């Protein structure tokens, strides 16, 4: 089972985990991204996320399906925020449950690594004295 979402509301980690619990699962791995206060020594004021929502949902779904083909997992959830986030807020939650923990760990890590490479979502870091779109320039 797969649950994919892009949300302009705060992500609720507890309900994400509750969704992924299952009597067939022996282990759940959860990755929670959080907004850090510093980037390369500069204080972060806020992050702004832009998403090409239709395509991003498709790509997130591809990740979940690929992962179900690669590992014996029970449930996969990938939720991502859009909009403006502050330090400590949660841009992304990934939850993978599986009968055995190795699959849950491997699949969860694959999901966040691939999401950062393929899903059309963009993050602008806003500092006291400027801003930048992450990864835009060499």
């Amino acid at each position: 089972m797969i649950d994919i979402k892009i949300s302009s509301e705060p992500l609720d980690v507890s309900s994400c985990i509750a969704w992924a619990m299952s009597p067939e699962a022996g282990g759940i791995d959860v990755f929670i991204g959080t907004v850090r206060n510093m980037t390369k020594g500069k204080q972060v004021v806020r992050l702004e996320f832009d998403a090409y929502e239709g395509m991003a949902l498709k790509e997130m779904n591809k990740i979940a399906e690929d992962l179900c083909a690669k590992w014996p997992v029970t449930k996969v959830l990938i939720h991502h925020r859009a909009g403006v986030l502050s330090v400590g807020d949660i841009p992304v939650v990934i939850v993978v449950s599986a009968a055995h923990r190795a699959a849950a760990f491997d699949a969860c890590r694959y999901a966040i690594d691939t999401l950062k490479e393929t899903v059309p979502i963009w993050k602008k870091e806003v500092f006291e004295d400027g801003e930048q779109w992450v990864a835009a320039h060499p």
Partner: protein
Amino acid sequence: MKVLAFGIAREIFGSATVEVAAGSASTAAELQDVLKLQYPRLAQLSSFMIAVNGEYAQPGTTINEGDEVAIIPPVSGG
């Protein structure tokens, strides 16, 4: 042809969409070239991709009338 723009591309265009003359680009690679000529700041990006109908395009992917076309600067989600 209307091209959707996100992230830094939207700032470079100054708009969420940009109009490209119909017939000036029939493949993704041609569209990249046309856009780089019109918007030299795009050439300074690490890279950018074209998406057609919500899928990453290959350089030779053809663009047909009515396709949803978007410019995808380097992604940075998560």
